[in-house]
């Protein structure tokens, strides 16, 4: 299997620490602590290997990647190895000094997340008073530094009716690119699914808002749109297929095909402290397990879309069906597709209170 094409992207969850507490966070419920995180030297070694095996882009994420004291050094090192560097940040700590340091480090792109276009809702959702104003200031710093700006809005029941305003704000801030991304239901998002799932009417109106804006802004702003699986007829090609494009590394150095994979039972994800990236990509059991189509059950195995959606998402199959080998129930061909409808019905009947993301209390 060593002739498999090299990975395109490396996703580095450099820390799980974050100043925000969004209830849709895709991090695991059990967050890793600072003392478990890889050292600077570990990350530098990962970046060297990534460049050698053909990774093209590195996405620094978290948690909040700017919480790592060595983030500027890591970005500079990646750029020096020819890797395209992208930082995915909440922006609340992106002050003038950090911006200047990142520019000196040669950062290529920054994606800035907003929780809402409404300031009060934004600050409530992130659990951080004043966050909205800091994010607006960060957007202006990014533009002022001459970098392209991507805004990311995570969409759910509480804000899905404001998609048109979100795009208008992105236009006002001169974003080149906007992500209107419905919550994906993993980690804290799955924990809060009843409060977050949009209704079908909300999904349809947000889709219409995106389509109208795409026409109006063609050639000026790219709008990427991510829909929730729960109203879908076919599953998403999660991560472009298991271990086909990306290597995701957790704060403590576990390499996985996606950030949620540690929820899957029966896996030992290789540590970058013990195994090379090349070995992980080409030979590790965890990466080979669901790569390609040989593992597929019916109805995937004989489906003409098997190399389009790659069977959907393994984590979703396990989370919703308890079977990581099953067809993603987001597919209407799955015999278990009804669980999606049941989740929607349960959600619509629920009161919708959120559990905010936080580290578990240390045991006394």
């Amino acid at each position, binding site marked *: 299997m060593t002739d498999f094409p*090299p990975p395109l992207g490396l996703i580095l969850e450099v820390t799980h620490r974050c100043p925000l507490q969004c209830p849709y966070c895709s991090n695991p419920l059990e967050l890793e602590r600072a003392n478990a995180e890889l050292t600077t030297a570990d990350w530098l070694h990962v970046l060297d290997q990534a460049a050698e095996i053909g990774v*093209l882009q590195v996405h620094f994420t978290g948690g909040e990647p700017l919480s790592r004291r060595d983030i500027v050094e890591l970005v500079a090192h990646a750029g020096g190895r020819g890797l*395209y560097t*992208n930082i995915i940040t909440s922006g609340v700590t992106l002050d003038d000094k950090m911006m200047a340091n990142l520019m000196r480090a040669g950062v290529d792109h920054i994606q800035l997340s907003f929780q809402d276009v409404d300031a009060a809702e934004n600050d409530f959702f992130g659990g951080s008073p004043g966050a909205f104003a800091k994010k607006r200031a960060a957007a202006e710093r990014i533009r002022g530094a001459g*970098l*392209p700006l*991507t805004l990311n809005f995570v969409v759910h029941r509480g804000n899905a009716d404001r998609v048109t305003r979100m795009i208008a704000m992105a236009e006002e801030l001169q974003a*080149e*690119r906007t992500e209107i991304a419905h919550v994906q239901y993993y980690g804290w998002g799955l924990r809060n699914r009843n409060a977050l799932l949009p209704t079908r009417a909300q999904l349809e109106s947000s889709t219409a808002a995106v389509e109208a804006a795409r026409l109006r802004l*063609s050639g000026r702003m790219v709008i990427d749109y991510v829909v929730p699986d729960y109203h879908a007829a076919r599953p998403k090609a999660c991560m472009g297929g298991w271990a086909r494009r990306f290597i995701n590394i957790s704060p403590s150095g576990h390499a996985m095909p996606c950030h949620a994979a540690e929820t899957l039972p029966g896996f030992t994800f290789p540590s970058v402290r013990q195994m090379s990236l090349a070995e992980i990509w080409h030979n590790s059991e965890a990466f080979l397990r669901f790569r390609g189509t040989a593992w597929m059950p019916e109805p995937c195995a004989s489906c003409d879309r098997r190399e389009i959606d790659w069977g959907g998402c393994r984590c979703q199959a396990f989370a919703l069906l308890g079977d990581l080998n099953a067809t993603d129930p987001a597919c209407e061909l799955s015999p278990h597709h009804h669980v999606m409808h049941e989740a929607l019905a349960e959600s619509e009947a629920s009161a919708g209170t959120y559990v905010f993301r936080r580290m578990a209390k240390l045991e006394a």
Partner: protein
Amino acid sequence: MSPAPRLSPGHKLRFDQVRQAWVLLGPERLFMPDEPAVEILKLVDGERTTHAIAENLAARFDAPLETIQGDVDTMLAELAARGAIKL
């Protein structure tokens, strides 16, 4: 005068030694241009007009200017619509 295209902010054309291929990298996206597209993209510098790019390629590849101009305009318009090129 025809426009002088440039790469959009945050986009980089570079040769990848591992794949032995040119890649166009941008914000959370990448393109693997085919050989004709690579020859066009190498001439995109914000100064050459689309006409100058076509003339350059027509001369070097000994091909009819009109055909090349059509290919250049189509390819660049497509990348512009996808946000990778500013015309």
